[in-house]
């Protein structure tokens, strides 16, 4: 065994340059958040995330004081919007665009080598970029869900306020926001890893999309390998499956939140560890894209 290897093995927890890593991570975060949040090309993510909020806004304007609707009805519509739009496609496509761009975008702009040439661990780069994407996605989608919630109950006036502050509304809002953040974490980790494996991560993304959409017809054991399965369990209002899907849906045993949340976190961490391992062997080829 070489002396360097012995030295590496003997390195204690205190010898790790935490301070340097933290400052490098902060620098990556600063650059990446600026890139993902404020660039002109990021407009699409705002359009995608805030489209339902605009719809709820129009609904609030056309139905002041709940003239044409009821709180029960709007609660169901909000839950439907959250599960059909946000969980199944909105956050999915948002994360696909954001997290794929983190590395593939650098390759398109021929700028990844600047990061690779800097004296910094590549795992740190993965962590920094992931955190930046996660913060951006969570911020945008959570704000959008919050706006939807405000518009959905705001136009009921005192009844709506009573539902939120003296009823189950506030708990539902917290749960919606929490599930949104978890969805960004789970899908983000998957797409970051896919972008490091495939030249065109969208085609495997289709497979993930189909799996996440139709996992309910799979045996209950297989359903546990889906991000949406855990997220649906954590959603505050349940929407029963309808149409053709209802015929084939296999009702899996519900998972407790104490298992669902660590399960999703473990899946994300495992995917990130894999991404960190993968990037150590990555060689840049700007010809590919």
């Amino acid at each position: 065994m070489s002396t360097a290897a012995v030295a590496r093995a003997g390195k204690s927890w205190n010898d790790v340059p935490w301070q340097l890593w933290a400052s490098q991570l902060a620098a990556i975060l600063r650059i990446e958040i600026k890139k993902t949040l404020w660039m002109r090309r990021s407009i699409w993510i705002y359009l995608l995330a805030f489209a339902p909020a605009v719809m709820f806004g129009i609904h609030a304007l056309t139905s002041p004081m709940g003239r044409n609707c009821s709180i029960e009805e709007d609660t169901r519509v909000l839950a439907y919007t959250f599960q059909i739009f946000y969980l199944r496609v909105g956050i999915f496509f948002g994360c696909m665009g954001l997290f794929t761009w983190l590395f593939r975008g650098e390759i398109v702009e021929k700028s990844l080598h600047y990061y690779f040439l800097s004296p910094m661990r590549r795992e740190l780069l993965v962590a920094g970029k992931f955190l930046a994407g996660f913060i951006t996605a969570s911020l945008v989608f959570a704000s959008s869900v919050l706006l939807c919630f405000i518009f959905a109950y705001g136009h009921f006036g005192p009844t709506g306020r009573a539902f939120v502050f003296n009823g189950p509304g506030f708990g539902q809002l917290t749960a919606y926001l929490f599930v949104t953040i978890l969805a960004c974490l789970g899908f983000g980790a998957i797409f970051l890893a896919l972008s490091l494996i495939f030249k065109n991560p969208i085609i495997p993304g289709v497979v993930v999309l189909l799996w996440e959409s139709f996992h309910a017809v799979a045996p209950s054991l297989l359903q546990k390998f889906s991000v949406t399965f855990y997220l649906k369990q954590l959603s505050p209002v349940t929407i029963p499956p309808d149409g053709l899907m209802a015929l084939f849906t296999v009702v899996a045993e519900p998972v407790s939140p104490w298992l669902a949340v660590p399960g999703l976190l473990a899946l994300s961490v495992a995917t990130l560890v894999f991404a960190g391992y993968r990037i150590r062997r990555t060689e840049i080829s700007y010809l590919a894209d």
Partner: protein
Amino acid sequence: MAVYKRTYKAYHGALTPAWSRFTVLTRYGLSTLFDSRPFTAYTVLCFLPFLVGLAYIYIVHSVAAQAIMGMNVGNAMPGTVNNDWFHRLLVFQAGMGFILAAWGGPGMITKDFANHSVQLYLSRPISRTEYLFGKISVLAALLSCTTWIPALILFLVKAELQGHGWLWDNLWMAGSIVLGCLLWIAVISLVSMAVAVWVKWRIAATALMLAIFFLLPALSLVIGAILRTNWGFLINFPFMITIVWAHLFKITLIHRHASGFDVVPLWAAWASLLSLCAACFWLLDRKLQAREVERA
């Protein structure tokens, strides 16, 4: 010989006829696509529904085959190969063809735009329309081979095995197969080309195509639920195609999110699809126009 000593002269060889020049682009486009082995494998996989359908038609008409397989269904089964059967087959093939188009379509044109090499094509005796037609023909040829051509073969096989004037009674179905598939091919090819010239990055173009065919339907459901209207379905292009196909195949359509009679009318479905095609044409025309580039 040194390069400067060479003398260049005009090409005097045989010229490709003007009407078929676009096929050069198609030929090279197809060849580039099939350089990828996974793509070739997937294209072969797209013929699986055709083979399964062929086997099914044969089995339902062959008493011997049914006896060998231990099936005793009498004369009931041939009737299952009807307009609904062909409709379902085409829906499945169209779904597989969508992935084919999303995979191969954007890559054909994004490189030309990203590397500013369109002018190299257009400096040859080929017009913008021919350039576009050559590129679209690649997808059209591929999708035709996996959709309406196999479906027509199955239709003819069914007619041959059934006999008794089945062909003449159901000739309208052949028209529906061709018209329905051509409409779908036109929509999907134009969308594929338009998003490719717009974003100029293959991965983003593929993602955008997926978004149009997966995200917009979800958004349309949300619009319908929040605003209590069915007009949101107009941006659900797969559903619009379903409405048109259901009409062409004379199938009663029951959509799970439509309450009874409130489905979008047929004219609106046609208008929605034609508007999408027109928007794609406009975008392609705009991006393919010659423009002066000033370099600082």
